[in-house]
């Protein structure tokens, strides 16, 4: 795990070596989705909440930068706060409604709200509408403003912090309740802890991490568009989590790296890359129940659901 993260931190050095910014863009994108998948997985892998709407929160984070900048609010801190507050204000009531349901109904409600906001942002003509908009001025962070390497490295730092935070959280008292609700909400209620508030808080934290990912995405690409909120992207986040191993903390990061690098590699190789990528994902998810990282970190068989909560490899 340390190796993978260290490799990410060394990418800027490599860019300088080969004198190209392309790796920085590629790996920046991977990091963004790793962070988002990590966030989603707190709800998905540890709380059993299959949300098909988390790309919406990436969009909120990105539009906080885009709209903030367009309206003259360039402070990076304020934009980040805007992203976090807007996300909390949407995620809390949405989660509260969605969590009254289970299974397919939960998936459909999260999807429905995400689609709703997707079309809201498409209709915002003054902020680019369907085409999206180029961000003229990136989030202001003093002398570091607009420095791609600085953005990239803070993204690495954010990812490391998020991994650490989630690893602590799932082992904490809160995490114990959350993981128990995934198996049996009834059990948790019977011991005197109402399950809903805990699930809701996990859902909101998970949304916030996606918003932070979106904040970085906008700064890396200098661009926002409703495409960041597409439901297919929400689906891809789920695939990343499952691919890497949703019962582990680090799994989604591995899943994001594997999926996007595989996609990139196959694109160079053939135009019909999706035809090859699809079956590979299916095979991995079917045959490696613990996902890629589950296999790497813990080859011994173990009941899924993860009493270990996560691997601190």
């Amino acid at each position, binding site marked *: 795990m340390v190796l993978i993260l260290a490799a990410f931190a060394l990418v800027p050095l490599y860019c300088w070596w080969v004198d190209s910014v392309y790796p920085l863009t590629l790996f920046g994108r991977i990091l963004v989705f790793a962070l988002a998948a990590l966030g989603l997985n707190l709800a998905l892998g540890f709380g059993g909440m299959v949300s098909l709407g988390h790309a919406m929160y990436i969009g909120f984070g990105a539009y906080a930068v885009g709209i903030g900048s367009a309206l003259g609010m360039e402070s990076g801190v304020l934009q980040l706060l805007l992203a976090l507050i807007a996300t909390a204000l949407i995620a809390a009531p949405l989660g509260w409604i969605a969590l009254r349901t289970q299974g397919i109904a939960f998936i459909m409600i999260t999807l429905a709200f995400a689609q709703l906001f997707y079309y809201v942002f498409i209709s915002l003509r003054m902020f680019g509408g369907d085409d999206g908009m180029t961000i003229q001025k990136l989030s202001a962070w003093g002398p570091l403003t607009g420095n791609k390497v600085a953005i990239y490295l803070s993204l690495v730092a954010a990812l490391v912090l998020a991994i650490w935070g989630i690893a*602590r959280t799932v082992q904490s008292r*809160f995490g114990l*309740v959350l993981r128990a609700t995934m*198996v049996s909400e*009834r*059990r948790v209620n019977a*011991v*005197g802890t109402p399950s809903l508030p805990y699930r809701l808080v996990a859902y909101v934290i998970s949304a916030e991490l996606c918003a932070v990912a979106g904040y970085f995405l906008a700064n890396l690409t200098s661009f926002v568009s409703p495409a960041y909120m597409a439901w297919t992207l929400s689906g891809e986040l789920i695939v990343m989590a499952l691919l890497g191993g949703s019962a582990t903390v680090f799994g989604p990061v591995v899943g994001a790296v594997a999926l996007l690098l595989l996609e990139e590699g196959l694109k160079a190789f053939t135009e019909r890359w999706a035809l090859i990528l699809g079956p590979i994902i299916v095979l991995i998810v079917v045959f490696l129940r613990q996902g890629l990282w589950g296999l790497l970190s813990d080859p011994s068989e173990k*009941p899924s659901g993860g009493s270990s909560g996560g691997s601190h490899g």
Partner: protein
Amino acid sequence: MSTPASAQPLLNLRGLVKRFGGLLVTDGVDLSIAQGEIHAVIGPNGAGKTTLINQIAGELTSDEGSMELLGHDVTRWPVARRAHLGLGRSYQINSVIGSFTTVENVLLAVQSGPLGGGHNFRFWKPATGPGPLIDRVDEILRMVGLHAERDRPAAVLSYGQQRLIELAMALATEPRVLLLDEPMAGLGPVETERMIELLKRLQPHYAMLLVEHDMHAVFTLASRVSVLVYGRVLICDEPEVVRTSESVREAYLGDEEISA
């Protein structure tokens, strides 16, 4: 064993009714249990025993009647709130969390109890780290004889051991009233004896409602026995009276033998 008439009942049901559509599953059940009492509820399959327990626990809302727990009218309270006030239950079918270790299962219940400080929004410290919560978990595990299995996942333990975790979880919320839904179900004779011994030891500290098919266990443990038939309490009396009652024999013992 009889309890002094002055003992304040911890659990009090008055005219509890539950209907599923046109079917009357619980038909005006009155029942009260004081501390130190084990009140056994027996009856043929389908008599509504588990429904009654679910009503008391709050998983099913009652259509009529009222329920008092430790002097509070809890008729409209949700499950978690009743549990928090002092109602513990064990399930007929094991509902321990298989992927959790024994410690984690019991901790889940302990941290929801009075030692937990009212909520579990603690995000940073490892839950199983040293402290008063984990001390209490170990204490309970020693009490039920599971301490040797503390760090093994519940899923790999024997059925009998899982039943004990189930009981430990019910005890761990520090309840005053215990609802035990067939604690002997699926246990072998040796394990059953051990469970009976354990419940006897616990008896003075709790008011217990025991739903059980094992008649040996019922007549060894119970201070009072209610016979439930079609949701109605046919008779509620001391074990000796119930065992020799003619109407019980007709309604119930036709298909099952009381040989204890």
